[in-house]
């Protein structure tokens, strides 16, 4: 081993090398691995094409898949579950949620609590779909949906407003069946 004055003994690692080129070992190195790879290729060839014809056809996602967010309302009263507490905004690592709260006026309630979110915006072009907002929400007001089709022509259109998040999304994504 070469002496490196700055290396301590235990720092040096010896490299394991393969056989020298030439001879049987060389031939194996040239073709053996290639054949192994070809085996996989041939096997798939017999299976036939698996291409999914997106967008006519879509890959089903797992139920836990984290797609575009949804805001929820109470089914019985129709009031928004979100109270505009901004906890989701605090949890968001991408800092892409903006909440501006306001006070409910008796007689014209928006949410069940004292306050509601007057502005609720998620900038989906920044979102990393980590789902922290869903975990942070004390009222299960925001959840991650399954939709992943969010591409758009304009960045501004990727800022989803409260109305967009509250609206029942067109379910475009098939779910994987149990155990699939």
């Amino acid at each position, binding site marked *: 081993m070469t002496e490196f004055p700055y290396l301590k003994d235990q720092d040096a690692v010896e490299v394991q090398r393969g056989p020298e080129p030439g001879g049987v070992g060389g031939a194996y190195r040239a073709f053996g691995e290639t054949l192994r790879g070809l085996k996989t290729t041939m096997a798939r060839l017999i299976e036939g094409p698996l291409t999914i014809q997106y967008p006519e056809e879509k890959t089903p996602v797992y139920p836990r898949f984290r797609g575009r967010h949804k805001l929820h309302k109470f089914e019985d009263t129709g009031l928004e579950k979100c*109270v*505009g*507490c*901004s*906890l989701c*905004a*605090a949890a968001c690592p991408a800092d892409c949620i903006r*909440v*501006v*709260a*306001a*006070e409910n006026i008796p007689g014209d309630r928006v949410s069940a*609590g*004292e*306050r509601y979110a007057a502005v609720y915006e998620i900038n989906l072009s920044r979102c990393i779909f980590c789902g922290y907002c869903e975990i942070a929400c*004390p*009222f299960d007001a925001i959840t991650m949906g399954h939709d992943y089709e969010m591409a758009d022509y304009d960045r501004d259109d990727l800022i989803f407003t409260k109305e967009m998040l509250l609206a029942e999304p067109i379910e475009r994504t098939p779910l994987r069946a149990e155990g699939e």
Partner: protein
Amino acid sequence: MSGKEITLIVDGREVAATEGEMLHDAAKRGDVEIPVFCYEPKLGEPVGACRMCLVEIEGIPKLQTSCSTPVRDGMVVHTRTDQVKHAQSAVVEFLLVNHPLDCPVCDKGGECPLQDITMGWGPGKTRFTDDKRHFQKPIELSPLVAIDRERCLHCYRFVRFSQEVAEDEQLQLLERGDRTFVGTFDDRPYVAPFHGNITDLCPVGALTNYTYRFRARPWDVEQAGSVCTLCPSQCNVSFTVRDEQVKRVVARDNPDVDDGWLCDRGRYGFEMFAAEERVTEPRLKGAAGGADWQAAIEKAAAGLKAAGVGKVAAIVGDASNEEGYLVQRIMREALDSENVAAGRAYGILRHDLVDISQPALSARVRDIDAADAILVIGTDPLHDSPILDLRIRKAVRRNGTKLAVATERPTTLDGGADAAVRYIPNATGAFLDDLVKSLSGSGDGESHFGADASQIADVLRDAEKVVVVWGENVAWGDGRGLLALAEALNIAEHDGAGMLEVPELANARGLREVGCMPEAGPGLSQRLGGMGVAGIRDGLQSGEIESLILFGVDPIRDFPNTARWKSALAAADHVVCFSMFENKTTALADVVFPLESHAEKDGTITHPDGRLQRVRPSASRPGDIRPNWGILAELSLALGFDTGISSQPSAFAALAGEVPFYAGITDGDIGGRGIRWQEGPAAAAFPTRPEPSGDPVELVFENEPGETTYTEARSYDLDVSTYRDLWVGPITELNPPLRFLSPRQTLELSPGDAERLKLEGGDEVTVSQNGSTIRARVAVRERMRDGTGFLIEGTASDNANALPDLAGTIAAKIAKVGE
């Protein structure tokens, strides 16, 4: 406090402490954190109400509250034993028994001590399964503060504030035991000038501001430290800024300035920054809409240039040091005129100012705390510099400082004063004379001008450390009385004694020191020949002044004799007005430039005690508002004079270069807390007192408050004087949350006068003088002098300034409306 140095052991660490100090504070210095709810040294003696701060002290079998246990030498304290931890988690569990835990909707969420302590010291779960206590929520404690009784911990903090700091005694915990709830007598609204402080004090979300209700969370905002410039107290504030707009103002503790309190003006005044009446772009007379900046500056410059030599003038009001400095430079250097003044009508003469401002005579705000006696003369701190009111109360309550009050009008401090006297308006000079005589024992013991100076002298005589808090008007035109008083009290000799001015303008001291005086340039250097405010007005009417700059003043509202001001401004050839809001004055101006608010401004100001403080830009400027120093520098350039100023720092450097006693003070020295120039590197450069030269000069000041003869036989009903109310002006009118406080014109009378004039409180009267009449409502007040009534200056309607000025008092006819 004995001040003896001792050591104790907290969690195995040796901690140095002063005898008599509370254990919690000593532990904190040793980096041991003990959770507290009710402990707040600003509120005075600890009460030990919440039991959160329990610790184990060796030798004492039971746990002790560290917030109210004074340290002893050799004490051994444990804050982390099982017993303490058990107690802490039990206290948290107990406090949460009735707490609704509605953090998501609570405004305190994210900055709540209860949340932090529950996470840090709480058990994490509760065994309580019964129903919690319920109250209606939220309810209005006042139009500005919401109270949620369910959240209250019964820590007594706000009760102590109300009883021991503000001393309004309105707040109480009612009922006992588990029924305790916060409230006021008979559920009356808690309306008091400092009540916003309780929202800072409450350790939970029980008391929250309506103005900040649901506006933001701590992680949505930035805190921007600056200084409030709404009055001479210059409290240190922190603006809570969201989306570049001020959403809240909170105190930024600075014991040298404000002691950590704010008045409601400073706390809730911020919504006027966004008022519709705000001037947000330059405007030219006759042109609809805003003007181009370049055009406006050229027009302003052309108008100023067109005036004859020396026929221009400037009046400065609400301005930073840099702005004042630039205005006076434009006047003196670009336009060759000495007519630059700050203020409303009268002023203090240069040589008096030099005498009174000598560092040996000047008091620090902090000196009030430790004074033996305080004399308040010619000012009601509550209206003129609110935070001083709290400061003086603190000294009286905690240190037993003696307090003497000598004013024209009753003050809120009278109640706690050892002596309170009323003198006749305008008779300050004579009263001071009496007082000085009484102090030296040569008084005749009689009360002249209705006030018995010997009562005041008795309070002050034996005190060494006397702080004199004097209203600017005391020295108007002639400061010799004040100086004689300082001499009689031996102020220069005693450490901790001093004089503290309460001026009319928030930055009066700074403006004077940077040269906004007709007879003094930067650094109070002697200049000659300028006109004062009243002179400028007369000059405008007579044609001696043709062109005028108004910077942050509204003469048609705030100056005495508004009618004369109106015709003076109408007679002017050219008026350039810098104003924050549209008002009657801007309506007459040829060019209007927008002013920045104190949340937008970048500059320095000088506290009445000499402390240079920095106002920092915190919020964005609405519309097309530009930095004021920049406009002034450009205006100067358009006038053909290059000031060489290209930024706020260069403006400050230029002015520090010209004010010798500011020299060497850098932005770093000012920092977040300010620095008194008296303690700066160049304090010795303050001009020395001129030697008295032979005969005393006869000082005749224009409109000098003259003495009126008081005779019984008179053709009028009452002498009426005026005062400036805390709540007058745009602060309430253009600011929705405070609008309810906007004062109506009120005629204050003594009970004797009310009887003589057959009036009762609540009556509507007209007050007329020389053909001008205003309406007012009568209020009968105790402790007023017979023969003098008071009206409010600057109200939106029935402004007392509309009565022709008779230098202070107005001999008025009073008639009941409808008779």
